[in-house]
């Protein structure tokens, strides 16, 4: 059994199991930690698919930045595991699970009919990645995908500003008269410089 097959069959069950655990945990912190495990296993899959740059980005951006943001918000809001169990729609859970299973079956048959389960990755990816995966990606990013790349930077700025605007506390404007009425100064306070 070749090594990448072994790695796949070790990490794919971990991936599915951690996703399942994430869905079933009541506690939001536990769910977030299981999601981190899942993101790491997907990073390993990227490595198997000859995408070492995306492997690094996945760990740095997802498991690093995004999950820290998630955990930060969970801690900030003090979310306890108190989730209401009662469904508003009758049988929502059962329907969701049935439809999800149907979706997996659909993908299975689509993949079997489309590319088949025997198709291996073709050789010759080394030539595409000539000079290194990161260099090849950078060449692609700064030539054919240059405009989307620049638009992305605008998107990030807009997102940062939007987050600040959305999350700020609305400060009420206070006039000097109101401030004086709220806490009138004693004559000594007025006189001392």
């Amino acid at each position, binding site marked *: 059994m070749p090594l*990448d097959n072994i790695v796949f069959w070790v990490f794919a069950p971990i991936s599915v199991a951690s996703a399942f655990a994430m869905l079933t945990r009541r506690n939001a912190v536990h769910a977030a930690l299981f999601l981190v495990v899942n993101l790491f296993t*997907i990073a390993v899959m990227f490595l198997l698919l000859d995408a070492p*740059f995306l492997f690094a980005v996945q760990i740095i951006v997802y498991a690093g930045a995004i999950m820290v943001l998630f955990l930060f918000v969970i801690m900030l809001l003090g*979310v306890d595991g108190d989730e209401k169990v009662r469904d508003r729609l009758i049988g929502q859970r059962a329907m969701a699970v049935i439809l999800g299973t149907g979706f997996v079956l659909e993908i299975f048959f689509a993949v079997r009919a489309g590319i088949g389960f025997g198709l291996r*990755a073709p050789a010759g990816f080394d030539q595409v990645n000539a000079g290194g995966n990161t260099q090849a990606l950078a060449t692609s990013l700064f030539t054919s995908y240059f405009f989307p790349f620049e638009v992305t930077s605008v*998107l990030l700025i807009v*997102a940062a500003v939007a987050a600040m605007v959305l999350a700020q506390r609305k400060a009420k404007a206070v006039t000097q008269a109101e401030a004086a009425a709220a806490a009138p100064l004693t004559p000594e306070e007025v006189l001392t410089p």
Partner: protein
Amino acid sequence: MRTPIAYFIMLSGILFAMGTVGVLIRKNALLIFMSVELQLNAVNLALVAFSRMHNRLDGQVLAFFSMVVAAAEVVVGLAIIVSVYRRRQSINVDDARTLRW
């Protein structure tokens, strides 16, 4: 002698379906959001697998862009959740179903 591409696609499909189920059954807005992240990651995996299958880098570039968009989306989404929590002291999505006051 490598792992067949279809296995990666299947794993991606399973993770996507689990993310969908998570979005449908959870009531906590944060957990719904995490399930959306799971879906995004599953699609990234499919993109990279197709990129490998076609021996082209475009799939990886698209996955890179999707990661950047996901980061932006998380920032805005979490800010919305914080602001909803401030208003009604709850992030249960059933409580916030009117979209008004």
